[in-house]
């Protein structure tokens, strides 16, 4: 089971959609079940008004309403909300075509009809087993419909100003060593350093110290700056200088 669905466009660009795991999907199903029960109960209450005309039909209708709501809830919402139900919205999930294209009505119908098999024998056991053993965490309905469920990660434009701007970089006094550092730092390594700086506030203080120490040690081995330049710099400050050096080209 992989964690992303990689899609290659005809232009040759690859983008990845983060796949939802069984636990989040189970939580979304749980929420949807509660919504269906509440919705069916509310409509059933309204159907009691029918008791004035026919008490027998008023008594029989709740079962029918529950069935109809249960059958069409997923289909209707996934079509109207482009791959989302209430549960999926809460859990920030979305059903998408497995080639990254727009969902078609037939896909919505097929994946929801196949719930009848996925939910067998109890608690979506068949669907759960299928999710564990398929590459893109798909239940049988997803396989038949050609869909996957992806996580909707809130997308924020990166703000580099806070990391790079307004800081004096003592490495600038050594352009040759800076050039060597740029040459030796791979994009992956540079990205790791930048990511650590952008997310530094999300780390526990002790973990933050350890992470910066390990990354900085690695950069220290790539290019050695004179000790008077690095004296007094914490690991975090050192890494900030590295990132500034690597990502920002300057006019000579």
């Amino acid at each position: 089971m992989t964690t992303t669905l990689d899609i290659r466009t005809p232009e040759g660009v690859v983008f990845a959609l983060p796949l939802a795991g069984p636990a989040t999907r189970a939580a979304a199903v749980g929420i949807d079940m509660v919504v269906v029960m509440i919705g069916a109960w509310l409509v059933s209450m309204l159907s009691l008004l029918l008791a004035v005309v026919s008490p027998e039909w008023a008594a029989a209708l709740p079962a029918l309403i529950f069935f109809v709501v249960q059958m069409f809830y997923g289909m209707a919402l996934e079509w109207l909300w482009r791959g989302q139900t209430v549960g999926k919205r809460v859990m920030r999930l979305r059903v998408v075509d497995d080639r990254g294209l727009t969902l078609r009505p037939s896909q919505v119908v097929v994946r929801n009809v196949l719930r009848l098999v996925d939910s067998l024998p109890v608690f979506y056991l068949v669907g759960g087993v299928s999710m564990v053993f398929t590459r893109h965490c798909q239940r049988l309905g997803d396989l038949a419909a050609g869909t996957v469920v992806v996580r909707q990660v809130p997308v924020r434009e990166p703000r580099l100003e806070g990391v790079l701007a307004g800081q004096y970089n003592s490495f600038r006094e050594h352009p040759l060593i800076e050039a060597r550092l740029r040459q030796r730092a791979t994009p992956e390594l540079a990205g790791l350093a930048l990511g650590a700086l952008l997310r530094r506030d999300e780390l526990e203080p002790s973990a933050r110290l350890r992470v910066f120490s390990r990354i900085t040690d690695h950069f220290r081995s790539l290019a050695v700056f004179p000790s008077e330049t690095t004296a007094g710099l914490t690991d975090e400050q050192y890494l900030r200088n590295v990132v500034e050096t690597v990502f920002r080209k300057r006019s000579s």
Partner: protein
Amino acid sequence: MGGVVILDLDQFIRRERPFWEELERVLAQQAEGGRLPGVEAARRFFYLYERAAADLAKVQTFAAEPELRGYLEGLVGQAYARLHQRSGSGVRWRPLRWLTRVFPATFRRHLGAFWLALGLSMLGAGVGALVLAQDPENKWMLVPAQFGHLQQTPTERVREEEENAGLRVGEIGEAAPAFSTMLMTHNTKVALTALALGFLWGGFTCVLLFYNGVILGFVAYDYIADGQGQFLAAWLLPHGVPELTAIFIGGQAGLVLARAVIGHGTGLPLRQRLRLVRDDLATLAGGLGAMLAYAGLIEAFLSQYHGPHLYRLKIGFGLMELVLLIGFFAVMGRRKPEEPQP
């Protein structure tokens, strides 16, 4: 390690940000149902997509900054889905055309699977009748709990129903609407489950069709052997014609799905085989749903009325439905010779 170039990320973002924001705005408008106002807008959209895709490629190659990469992947992914949405997905769905043309044409395309579903059910019906003919005591063991009223002898039930003849539907008995509802939901579940079980190579679909046939044969034999064939026909035909046909169509769809899963002799991968039958499965599922909704109405407002004076009328109505249904599936949705292929 030498020669690796790292993007000037700050400058890159500053230069490209206006284009990304413009693409975001266009996508947001489209997500709210807006359409591109003309060819120029569509060209601009395509340009923005290509530019964002190129930026993503640069970021992936020269700067593995995960946040920027994630942002561009999201942007390119949305734009890609919009640009490459398949032909027809923007066409308005016309229910009448779908019901009168697409559904019967799809049904005919998989006629072999329908005959197989019908054959399995009839085989089950034969076995059910045979089991009851062998030993009438089997009835008490084999009738499912939800068909509790079948535990009466047919003659007892007919006498009871005829005594109540002429009453309003609300007076037929408290259980009648509940029983109709139960049958309708049960049959819908059977039909859709027969479809869904097709994914498990069709074995369970065959078992379900056979078992459903056994119950049908069982009930039919019980009534006919007890001399109540006319009551049975009047009771079952009006709603049974669309209802049973819908169950057979569910089985048909299940067998179509099973054939796609097994894929013997096609040489195509599973994903492609499933893609080829997906629209047909959805059409058959929708069609059987429409038929079951119709059957439910007939069951609620016609089938629950009994009485000797209604038997001929109800049998005539059921036979008329059968003829119309056969005509519907045989004739509707056929293309005229001059009509082009869709």
